[in-house]
C-alpha cells in the first residue's frame, strides 16, 4: 500500500510568477533526411523569435540558461546531443543540462525551466526538445522504444511497447468498458478525431480523413489495440521561452503574444506495471471521499487502484497542479487541453486521472462531444476541446519535443494566434504539404486557461503544464 506523508503532499509554490512568452516548432515527420537535428532546432527557435518580432540573435541575448529535452540517445546514436545542439545554437558558454524522462521529456524540460525562473537563478530560460527517430527502420525503432521498459523483466517479451499498454487496454475494456463493442468504437472515434484535426495542422505528420470502421479494420498490433490506435514515430523539435515578469513584459511589448502564467507539476509511478500496489484513490478537488465507495459494484474487477486501469503519475501531477493554481473542476475551469494520447486507451485513462470524468466514466468525455472543437451532437463549441493539434496520434510524437509542442499549441489558443500559426499558406508550402480545401479554423474562442499532459512509459513520469492569461487567474497567490 502506498501512503503519502504530509510533507509529500505539500502543495508546490513558485517563489515568483513565471511566464511563457513565446514558443516555436519545426515540421514533424516520420523521416526528415534532408535536415540535421540542429537545423530542426534552429527552425523552432527562429519561429519563437519571429512570434515576438525578433531575430533569433536578438532573442538569444535574453537567454540565461538552457534545458534540453532529448530522450533516446540510442535513436540518434549521439551521446551528449545536448552539447551539440547548444553549440550549434550559438549559446555557449551558458549553463545547460539535458532532461530525459521518456515520453514526458518535453513536459519535464518545461518543469525544470519553470523552476529555474521561479527560484531566481535565471530571468529567461530556453526549453528546447527534439527527437530523431528516423535513423533506424520501424521494427528496430520499436526495439529501441521497448528498451524503456525493464530490460530483464519486460523488454524481452516481444520488444514492443504497444504490448505493455495493451494489457491495460484489455483490462480497462473488460472492467470499465464492460467488453462492449460501443466502447471499442469510442476508442476508435478518438483516432478519427485526432487524425482529422491533424488535417488542419501544417506541422502534423499524420493527417487522415478516416472513419471508425477504418480504425477497427486497421491491422492488429497488440489486441485489442490496432495500428490506428497508436501514436506516431517522429522527427522534429519544439521550444519555449520561459521568463520572469519583467523580462516577459519587455519581450512581449508591441507583439501579439501576451505573457502567459505557467506552472508545471509532476508525478510518477512504477516503470513496470507489475510493481503497482493497491492504494486509496488520491482525490482531486472535484471529487468526494465517498464517490468511489461502490465502484467495485458498478464495475466488477475495479477494486484495485490504480491497478492496470489508471495512471497514478497523472493523478498526482493533476493533484499538485490543480491545488497550486486553484483549479477545482477542470472541465469548467479550463478552455482547451492537449493530452498525451500515446494510444486511444491511454487518452481515456487520462480523462479520469485528471478529473475530466470520474474513474470508470472516461468514455463519456468523448461520447458527450465535450472533447471536440465543435460538439458534433449539438453543433455548439465543445465544453473542453482536446488535442486540436492532432495529438500524438495525428500530429507527432518526437518524444523530447512532444510536451513542448503541446504547450505551443495551447498557447496559440490563448494568444488568439491559432489560425495564423496553422492556416498560413506559406507554412504549408514550406513544409511541402497541401492545405486542405476544407481547412477549418480551430481557434478556441476566448481561451484563457489551458492544460497539457506529458506522459512517459506506462505512466512512469507525468507532468501537467498549466497556462493562464494573467488577467484570468483562479487563485490570487498562485
Amino acid at each position, binding site marked *: 500500500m502506498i*501512503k503519502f506523508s504530509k510533507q509529500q503532499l505539500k502543495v508546490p509554490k513558485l517563489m515568483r510568477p513565471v511566464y511563457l512568452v513565446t514558443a516555436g516548432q519545426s515540421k514533424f515527420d516520420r523521416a526528415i533526411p534532408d535536415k540535421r537535428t540542429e537545423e530542426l532546432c534552429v527552425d523552432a527557435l527562429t519561429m519563437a523569435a519571429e512570434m515576438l518580432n525578433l531575430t533569433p540573435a536578438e532573442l538569444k541575448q535574453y537567454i540565461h540558461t538552457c534545458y534540453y529535452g532529448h530522450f533516446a540517445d540510442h535513436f540518434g546514436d549521439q551521446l551528449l546531443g545536448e552539447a551539440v545542439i547548444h553549440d550549434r545554437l550559438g549559446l555557449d558558454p551558458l549553463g545547460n543540462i539535458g532532461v530525459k524522462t521518456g515520453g514526458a521529456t518535453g513536459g519535464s524540460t518545461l518543469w525544470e525551466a519553470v523552476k529555474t525562473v521561479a527560484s531566481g537563478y535565471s530571468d529567461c530560460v530556453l526549453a528546447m526538445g527534439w527527437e530523431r527517430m528516423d535513423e533506424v527502420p520501424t521494427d528496430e525503432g520499436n526495439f529501441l522504444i521497448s528498451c524503456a521498459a525493464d530490460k530483464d*523483466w519486460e523488454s524481452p517479451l516481444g*520488444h514492443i511497447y504497444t504490448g505493455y499498454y495493451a494489457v491495460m487496454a484489455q*483490462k480497462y475494456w473488460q472492467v470499465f468498458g464492460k467488453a462492449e463493442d460501443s466502447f471499442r468504437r469510442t476508442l476508435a472515434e478518438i483516432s478519427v478525431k485526432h487524425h482529422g484535426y491533424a488535417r488542419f495542422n501544417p506541422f502534423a505528420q499524420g493527417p487522415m480523413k478516416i472513419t471508425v470502421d477504418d480504425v477497427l479494420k486497421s*491491422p492488429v*498490433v*497488440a*489486441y485489442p489495440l490496432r495500428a490506428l490506435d497508436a501514436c506516431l514515430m517522429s522527427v522534429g523539435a519544439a521550444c519555449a521561452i520561459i521568463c520572469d515578469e519583467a523580462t516577459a513584459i519587455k519581450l512581449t511589448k508591441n507583439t501579439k503574444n501576451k505573457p502567459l502564467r505557467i506552472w508545471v507539476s509532476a508525478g510518477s509511478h512504477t516503470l513496470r506495471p507489475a510493481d*503497482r500496489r493497491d492504494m486509496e484513490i488520491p482525490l482531486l478537488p472535484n471529487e468526494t471521499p465517498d464517490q468511489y465507495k461502490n465502484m467495485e459494484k458498478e464495475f466488477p*474487477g475495479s477494486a484495485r487502484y490504480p491497478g492496470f486501469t489508471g495512471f497514478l503519475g497523472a493523478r498526482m501531477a493533476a493533484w499538485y497542479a490543480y491545488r497550486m493554481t486553484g483549479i477545482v473542476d477542470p472541465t469548467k475551469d479550463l478552455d482547451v487541453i492537449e493530452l498525451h494520447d500515446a494510444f486511444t486507451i491511454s487518452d481515456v485513462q487520462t480523462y479520469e486521472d485528471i478529473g475530466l470524468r470520474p474513474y470508470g466514466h472516461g468514455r463519456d468525455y468523448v461520447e458527450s462531444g465535450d472533447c471536440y472543437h465543435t460538439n458534433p451532437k449539438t453543433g455548439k463549441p465543445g465544453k473542453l476541446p482536446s488535442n486540436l493539434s492532432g495529438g500524438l496520434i495525428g500530429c507527432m510524437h518526437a518524444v523530447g519535443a512532444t510536451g513542448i509542442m503541446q504547450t505551443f499549441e495551447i498557447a496559440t489558443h490563448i494568444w488568439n494566434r491559432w489560425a495564423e500559426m496553422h492556416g498560413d499558406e506559406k507554412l504549408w508550402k514550406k513544409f511541402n504539404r497541401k492545405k486542405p480545401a476544407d481547412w477549418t479554423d480551430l481557434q478556441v474562442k476566448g481561451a484563457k486557461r489551458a492544460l497539457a499532459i506529458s506522459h512517459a512509459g506506462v505512466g512512469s513520469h507525468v507532468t501537467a503544464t498549466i497556462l493562464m492569461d494573467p488577467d484570468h487567474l483562479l487563485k490570487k497567490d498562485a
Partner: protein
Amino acid sequence: MSMFGQVYVKNNQYKIKGDFHHLTPCTPIRNADDGWKLMGVTNPREMTYMHSYGGEAIFFESLSQGKLMATKCENPKCESKGSIYQPFRIFCPDCLGKMAVMDMTKLAKEKATIHTFMVCERSGAFNILDKPIKFINIEFDGVCTILMSYLSKGDPEIGMRVVPIFQTLNPTYTILDLSWVPAGTKASALPQGFTF
C-alpha cells in the same frame, strides 16, 4: 574464424573471450530525386554487452531449475512487513531493507490467475518469441504485485487459472525461461524444452 563473445567472472572481474564487435563498412545514402547527391551514410554496428543480474541472479538461475523465487519483507519495523513481491525485487520499496528470498513455486502452481492479457501480432526487432505472443499478467493470492509473462498454450481470459512452466532444457537464463499454461495442461503438450 569469429567466435561469439563469452564471459565469466573471476575475482569479481569480467574475463572475456571471443568477438564482442564486428566491423561492417559504412555505405553512402544518396538522393534518387536529386542527381544521387550524398545525403548521409549508414552506420552498421554489432556489439555484445555484459550485463549483471546482481542480486536478482538467483531468480534467473532458479527458473532454469524449475523454481519461481520471490522476495518477502521481514523487517519487523516495516509497515509493509510480510508483503511478498513478484516481480522479485531485492529491497523492500518502503523500508529499503534487503528482503528474504522465498520459493513460491507451489503457490504459483496452485493460486495463479490471469489479471489481464493481450495478444501481440507484431513485435520489435530482436524478438525471439513466436507470434502471436500472448502476454499475460498474473496475480497470486498473498502477493502484492502482478507479474508480466506469456502464455504458451491456449487462449487467455481474465480470471483463468494458469500454472508456471520452466525452460529447464537449454535455458536462456532470461525471463523467457518462465512461461505459463492453463491449469490442467498435460506435460506432453508443453513447448520443447519446458517442464512443469
